[in-house]
């Protein structure tokens, strides 16, 4: 799904047109589509092909976009911590003490911990999977699904351990 999002609608049209035999007459100098090309396509008012909605969610695509979503979520936490450190006058232990004094319910703390740790562990394990791909390993469909399932199970177990045992 991530790959599809990256390609985008125009990207996919472009790829398809380039791959078809019609692309052969293109000269190197004119091979980059100009703004006029896109204006012309828009003016034709062709029906827009549905894109993301027509795909059945698969483990591969769902994990791919989840990697980005978890990355964005974890980034937000780090951004918040860093900017909070710059903006606030107090020290961190005071902040922790304030939270303790507020007697925040475990019904809020436990889901927070589970959500953060599952995002972290998923991004961690799936990141290793990504680095393996970057080395050219694990590209068969069978391996993709197997490693995907391993990542999901490991993340769930690790997040549960971190939430309830640490």
């Amino acid at each position, binding site marked *: 799904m991530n790959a599809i999002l990256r390609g985008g609608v125009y990207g996919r049209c472009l790829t398809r047109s*380039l791959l078809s035999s019609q692309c052969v007459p293109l000269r190197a100098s004119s091979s980059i589509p100009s703004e006029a090309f896109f204006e012309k396509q828009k003016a034709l008012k062709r029906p827009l092909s549905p894109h993301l909605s027509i795909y059945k969610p698969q483990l591969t695509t769902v994990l791919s976009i989840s990697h980005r979503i978890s990355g964005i979520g974890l980034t937000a936490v780090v951004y918040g911590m860093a900017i909070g*450190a710059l903006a606030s006058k107090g020290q961190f232990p005071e902040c922790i003490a304030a939270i303790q004094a507020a007697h925040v319910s475990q019904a809020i703390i436990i889901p927070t911990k589970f959500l953060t740790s599952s995002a972290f562990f998923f991004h961690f394990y799936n990141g290793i999977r990504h680095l393996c*791909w*970057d080395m050219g390993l694990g590209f068969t469909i069978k391996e993709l699904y197997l490693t995907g399932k391993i990542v999901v199970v490991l993340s769930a177990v690790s997040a549960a351990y971190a939430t309830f045992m640490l």
Partner: protein
Amino acid sequence: MSLLIRAMPRTALLRASILKSQPCLSALAKRESSTGNHTPLWTAERAVSAALIGVTPLALAMPNPATNFLLSLALTAHIHWGMEAIAVDYVRARVVGSVLPKLAMGAVYGLSFATLGGLMYFNFTDVGLANAILMFWKL
């Protein structure tokens, strides 16, 4: 072939070899990459990601100024490149106009500098990043 290219937009070497065998795809390479050799940057991104696999558990197991410094530096670089890729992929000039992509990229750089500064400030004047995570986890 197009699927392969879209699935791994940043694997420069692989793409280069595919493009060589498919002359009509060279337009894609031209469109997607600016000038210059991006291989060292790509390698640096992976090196920092790989380093974080070790640095993150190390900092949490042994929180001290050295591990906090390493973690903050590597994490900020990793976050910067990740958010940059997201801005490039989703805030595209052809879709949102020419102003927003520049704003998004500016925001990525601004946030990255603020993050590096904030984390280093936190490490030097407060309990440090790894200790803060451990203290939060005890709640």
